């Protein structure tokens, strides 16, 4: 199981544009993507904007993004980059 732990850097947290960009990318991946907060919350479906919003990840909080299967590393790298973009 591939995992990436990242600290969310955007001022709005994983909401609004960062959340939308994240979900748009996650939806392109063939495998399941999950997102969990390192300090409680989740895992939730990384392709669900409502689930991501309800997870309520703020700036400075860390999340673990998980995916499994062929190409998972590449997908995870891209998602981690989106989540850690200020």
């Amino acid at each position, binding site marked *: 199981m591939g995992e990436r732990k990242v600290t969310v850097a955007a*001022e709005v947290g994983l909401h609004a544009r960062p959340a*939308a960009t994240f979900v*748009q990318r996650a939806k392109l991946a063939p495998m399941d993507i999950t997102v969990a907060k390192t300090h*409680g919350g989740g895992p939730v479906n990384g*392709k*669900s904007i409502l689930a991501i*919003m309800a997870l*309520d990840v703020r700036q400075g909080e860390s999340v673990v993004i998980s995916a499994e299967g062929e190409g998972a590393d590449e997908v995870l790298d891209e998602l981690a980059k989106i989540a850690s973009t200020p």
Partner: protein
Amino acid sequence: MNLRGVGVSPGIGHGPSYVLTVSVPEPPEGATYTGEAEREKERAMAALTQVAGELEARGNQAGGEAEEILKAQALMAEDPGLVVKVRSLIDRGLAAPRAVFEAFTKYRDVLTGSGGYLGERAADLGDIRDRVIALLNGQAMPGLPVAPEEPYVLVARDLAPADTALLSRDDVVAFVTEEGGPTSHTAIMARSMGVPAVVACPGATRIPAGVPVMVDGTSGEVRLEPAASDVAHAVGAATARQAALASWTGPGGTADGHPVPLLANVGGPAELDAAVAAGAEGIGLYRTEFLFLDRPEPPSAEEQVHAYRAALEAFPGGRVVVRTLDGGADKPLAFLPAATEPNPALGERGLRRFARYPEVMDVQLGAVAAAGGASVMAPMVATAEEAAWFARECRDKGLTDVGVMIEIPSAALRAADLLAVVDFVSIGTNDLSQYSFAADRQLGAVSAMHDPWQPALLDLIAATAVAAARAGKPCGVCGEAAADPALACVLVGMGVSTLSMAPSALAAVRAGLAAHTMEQCEAAAEAARAPSSAADARAAARAHLPGLDRLGL
């Protein structure tokens, strides 16, 4: 008829009202379908896909901030969690419109329950839901006039981005909504369009269609059928005021050079930019509980240090006052739970609650100290013993500038005793008013008591300022009172040394102070204390502050 809400985008706008009615009726409870479940599911999926496509197309057409919002909405319409819910409700026998209604309502309730930013996104979901149901039922979509004869004031319960995205500055002169807050889409869109807006305005949707309306996006006032002369006067005053206020810049102070640092009240890192842009000289009140309101667990030291350091970096050399967690009453914190209280405002809130959770306090005070250079103060302090205890805890952590808020009459009356053990005091006029007049801040019926010009409130402020001057220690005011340009002059005249307010109020207060000498401020303060009513106190003070009228304040 006049209405009042919260002004969120300044300026005067007037024109006939256009009341946006979104009247997609709720599909009847338990409505079923005939035919196969698969067919019904396909019907629902097609409607969701079509609405998502329309939202995306509108986004592409609108561009900018609206594009992002609409594309996020398109994702919501096709959210996998929502789709699964709709399908399972149809499997259980519900007709597509009812299934869509229930699935969206479930998610909307989750968002509403979270409050804050998420709560304000709830309007988005309601709007998407109505569009999908209208499509399934073959009803007309809620919408706006295509080519209005003249610019109008848009009135609605709440506005969704799909409503506002394609609006033109040429067609809309103001927004009024019954619901929403300062961070709702209406507010964000209005500010980015430069259109005056009033939100949270009770009774707005009962404004008759087509009547002339004048909207003051600064004061929050909404007037129906105003006289032409009133409109001309308001527009003229607003134009003059904008020009006059914009010409005052630099640090706060009186006309004769007596410095009065003007600080901002903020609730998180996202508000720092607005404070810097408005020319704040520091942060007079950092409401740390807003960083953590919907958290299940207390925030980590690391995260707090990060937040406090960001404030210090935004104001190099400026003052930053971090208020410790003010949980309880109207701001419940999940990680600082308390037993049910019959009167939460009089219960274990503020410092009282904080003291019950020494581990949370340890982390916060340690984080303020680690951030380096910030001041710290405690809310809801009633006695000198409490102040002394808090000061000891802070100094043990290495904090050197420790204060308490004056929000309880007992603290104001014995301010000298509190000042003997702390380095500064800051008067929270909103709570001081609530506790002085035994009038709940959240209750509309007693709101008249909360006039910051109430003579008894002025007496308590003056007593605190005098005690601070005698002790040779700073006394700030961080409440609604500081944001009123006339009252700001009066506070300075009483001996208040710093004023802290919402960033949007800074320009008017800066201009008002700069137009008067210390002597005029002192005369206004003395005059304000003599009358026995708030209205008379205001009038008496203004008579000594001639510069305010010249500025249109």
